[in-house]
């Protein structure tokens, strides 16, 4: 029991430190690495909650595959450092205040809910609770429709990503003469370099 508590506080400190690192670190590359640390700490918490399959999925799918995707994109577009508190509008300045207010509200909501089970330690879990066998049986019996919907959603997202990130024919030529295009945009300051402007060039 004591071991469990120590593990919880170590993992919770790691998760909060990772989350703060994601928000505070200016270089996006290190933000991604901080998120990996956060996900590993969270997987530890999942294990404490007897969710073995989800902890493994978190490590393999999230910290493994999804984060590799992030690292690829950060390396592709070049992680430019951005100033943390820029001249951004009122939203950027009031952001932390809003987050604190939300935390306060959540605390009041959960604390005031008077859920007795929140305070009491849960009993021993049933054998096989959270195991791949139980998750699989639930997915294929009680939650078959969400399971199928999730697979369809993944298919749609994969097709959508290919459509979004593919090379357009007009832009490829523009890429070959990128320097001249940039020069042209500099010479014509009347036309702003917005999405509409870029698509007009492509056409």
């Amino acid at each position, binding site marked *: 029991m004591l071991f469990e508590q120590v593990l919880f506080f170590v993992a*919770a400190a790691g*998760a909060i430190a990772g989350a703060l690192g994601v*928000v505070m670190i200016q270089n*996006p590359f290190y*933000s*991604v690495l901080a998120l990996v640390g*956060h996900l590993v700490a*969270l997987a530890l918490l999942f294990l404490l*909650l*007897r*969710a073995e399959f*989800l902890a493994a999925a*978190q490590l393999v*799918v*999230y910290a493994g595959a*999804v984060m590799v*995707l*992030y690292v690829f*994109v*950060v390396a592709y*577009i070049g*992680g*430019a450092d951005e100033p*943390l508190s820029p001249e*951004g509008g009122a*939203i*950027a300045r009031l*952001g932390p205040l*809003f*987050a604190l207010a939300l*935390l306060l509200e*959540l605390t009041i909501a*959960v604390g005031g809910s008077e859920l007795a*089970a*929140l305070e*009491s330690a*849960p009993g021993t879990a049933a054998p096989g609770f*959270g195991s791949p066998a139980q*998750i699989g049986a*639930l997915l294929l019996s*009680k*939650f078959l429709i*969400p399971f199928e919907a999730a697979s369809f*959603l*993944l298919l749609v*997202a994969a097709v*959508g*990503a290919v459509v*979004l*990130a593919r*090379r*357009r024919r007009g*832009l490829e030529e523009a890429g070959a003469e*990128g320097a001249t295009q940039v020069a042209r945009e500099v010479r014509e300051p009347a036309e702003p*370099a917005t*999405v*509409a402007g*870029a*698509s007009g060039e*492509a056409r």
Partner: protein
Amino acid sequence: MSPGWFVALSAVIFCIGVGGVLMRRNPLVVLLCLELMLNGGNLALISFARMHGTGDGQIFALIVMVVAACEVVVGLGLIVAMYRRRLAIDVDSMSELRG
């Protein structure tokens, strides 16, 4: 450990994510902060699943992970498309939907 601790931790993680989404301007980091928010929700779901002793909350968390993966794929595709068109990688300068 009582589930209250886990729920409180998930609230903290969610709020850190909210603050990041509001503060940061790099769309990549905004996506990372969205991941933080989804993970906070996942932690709450799993702790409630443990509280009730049924696997339903864990299935819910699994579906949330699937949705998060889809969101990442589409969001990163958008960022790569923005980069290809030489637009500024900055959410503040993206003010219109026209492609």
